[in-house]
């Protein structure tokens, strides 16, 4: 592992959680929701309920006006969150509130670079650490732009989780893996979130290829919509990531004015419980 990776990166909540999963002999469930979707209050209710519903790691979307790698479900979630007044600062407040109730479940912020750029990289990293953020996934920062945020994050002790994709060929793979820490996120399709689902055998082969090059855990996402699909992924990878399907479930619980109907958070958490059931039963 890179010399930059200090203790916090190699030995933080993410590493500890994957070690625990390994000890349990099962894969993890990574759930994605967008911070502040559909409003801060409802989002907080969902967020706080996720660990008990079976989420092993949490990805929290940092809303952005122009999410160009996302499909309609997460685009809409991002806009709902922005309309509800969500900012990077309020996103970090959500994390801080969550940390007060849960010291162990890793939180990874996922989003695009510009809101972090506008916040100021150093200030953002300091505030994120203080709030209890464990990792960052920033879609529009490939290895070619590592100096922007990846290296400062590693120096500060925040995991920078890189996406590997079907287009990441043998030549690029070392660059993609180089400064990655926490886990590697394998994007199982060439495309945007919430659309096609990958073929299971292809995913298995891709995970094996990654595993032959890194000791880091490999999580697989994009296109996982059902407990069955999550279970299939859990058989071949260290974790299954579900985003659009959860966000869609949340959107189904909105009334015509876009307001959360009573019971929305419980319904979303119920769905997460089903997904967790799939993941946990996969290798039984």
């Amino acid at each position: 592992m890179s010399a930059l990776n200090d203790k916090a990166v190699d030995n933080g909540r993410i590493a500890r959680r994957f070690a625990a999963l390994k000890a349990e002999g099962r894969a993890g469930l990574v759930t994605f929701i967008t911070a502040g979707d559909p409003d801060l209050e409802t989002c907080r209710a969902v967020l706080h309920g996720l660990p008990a519903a079976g989420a092993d790691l949490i990805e929290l979307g940092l809303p952005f006006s122009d999410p160009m790698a996302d499909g309609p479900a997460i685009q809409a979630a991002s806009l709902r969150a922005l309309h509800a007044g969500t900012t990077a600062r309020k996103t970090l407040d959500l994390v801080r509130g969550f940390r007060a109730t849960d010291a162990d479940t890793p939180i990874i912020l996922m989003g695009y670079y510009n809101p972090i750029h506008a916040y100021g990289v150093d200030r953002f990293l300091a505030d994120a650490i203080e709030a209890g953020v464990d990792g960052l996934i920033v879609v529009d920062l490939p290895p070619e732009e590592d100096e922007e945020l990846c290296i400062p994050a590693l120096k500060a002790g925040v995991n920078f989780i890189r996406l590997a994709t079907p287009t990441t060929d043998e030549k690029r793979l070392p660059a993609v893996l180089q400064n990655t820490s926490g886990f590697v996120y394998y994007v199982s399709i060439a495309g945007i979130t919430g659309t096609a689902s990958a073929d299971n055998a292809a995913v298995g082969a891709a995970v094996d290829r990654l595993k032959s090059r890194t000791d880091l855990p490999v999580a697989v996402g994009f296109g996982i919509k059902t407990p069955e699909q999550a279970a299939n992924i859990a058989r071949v990878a260290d974790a299954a990531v579900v985003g659009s399907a959860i966000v869609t479930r949340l959107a189904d619980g909105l009334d015509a004015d876009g307001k959360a109907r009573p019971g929305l958070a419980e319904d979303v958490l119920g769905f997460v419980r089903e997904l967790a059931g799939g993941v946990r039963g996969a290798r039984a």
Partner: protein
Amino acid sequence: MTRPNTFRSGPDERGHFGIYGGRFVAETLMPLILEVEKAYREARADPAFEGAIREQLKQYVGRPNPLYYAERLTEKLGGAKIYFKREELNHTGAHKINNCIGQILLARRMGKKRIIAETGAGQHGVATATVCALFDMPCVIYMGETDIARQQPNVFRMKLLGAEVVPVTSGARTLKDAMNEALRDWVTNVADTYYLIGTAAGPHPYPAMVRDFQSVIGDEVRVQMQELEGRLPDSLVACVGGGSNAIGLFHPFLDDPSVQMVAVEAAGHGIDKGPLAHAASITGGRPGVLHGNRTYLLQDEDGQILEGHSISAGLDYPGVGPEHSWLHDIGRVEYVSATDQETLDAFQLCARTEGIIPALESAHALAEIVKRAPKLPKDHLMVLCLSGRGDKDIFSVAQHLGVKL
């Protein structure tokens, strides 16, 4: 800031113009961006590629277009001697086709089978649909629903040319959303699709490549001015949306210190009227990262991108090409702005004094000339890039003038 020996050597190998530019794209796209870069580098070294472009520009586009002495406008303004670079006489009526010819020839060299593009006013969409018809390639144009509603003639033109026009309903449904949607298409169809970006923006190598293809504008002006006046021009004026016509005019002159350059952004209702009232990314924005590059952007305090406003659909992009951001910071090019009203006045003035109906985009540059020329001596040679013709705009102009068509 130290002054570089040359202003023409950028970008560096990582696509940076100073701190601007770069390759801020998702990993899925990164191998494609690298492939385009490599293919472009090889093509540039191949005289046959250059020859094919020259041939198309001559026979199909109709280049060189004139550097025309606008005598009546010069007399009317009573100062600088004004020349128009007549890009509006190109096939399809704007400078956009220069870039499309270059990129479609590159896409063919790369063996790509399908072309996608974004468009705002529809000019780039029409130019792309045109070259796709010419080279018999399927063409998908992403266009915001808002823009589709206000640019109906161009939408129909694209369809006549055989393109599929996909309405974009995300975000504010204008140019930036069309670009997001084109990027989404590209990540989904990585194997066979080429993304033909319409301005000098986006991830490296697009800003440099589009600039190179548009530099034919400045190269011709250099030769033509030598023939007409026996010397270099004193100043160059162009409008900036993403910045392709401006950089195409400016780039060949960047290392001639006597040549002054002025780029005109869209001030909409006025830059002092708040961040949503204009589309002047450099004059009224700050640096950020969007669509693959670091550049000046219209954004709020939290880094959310704002929707600009301009009377001209071709200028209301919330960003600007990264080379312009750099040229601004180092002070080589002066960035100013023109309001909707100043633009409408200049539009009418040009129509009546020169018998040329300019595109509203180009009329922004004309508005600056109206301000600047009277204060300059008669031997000051000023070149305006008349980037496009205004037929597409007559409906919106009529509406603004309160005329029912």
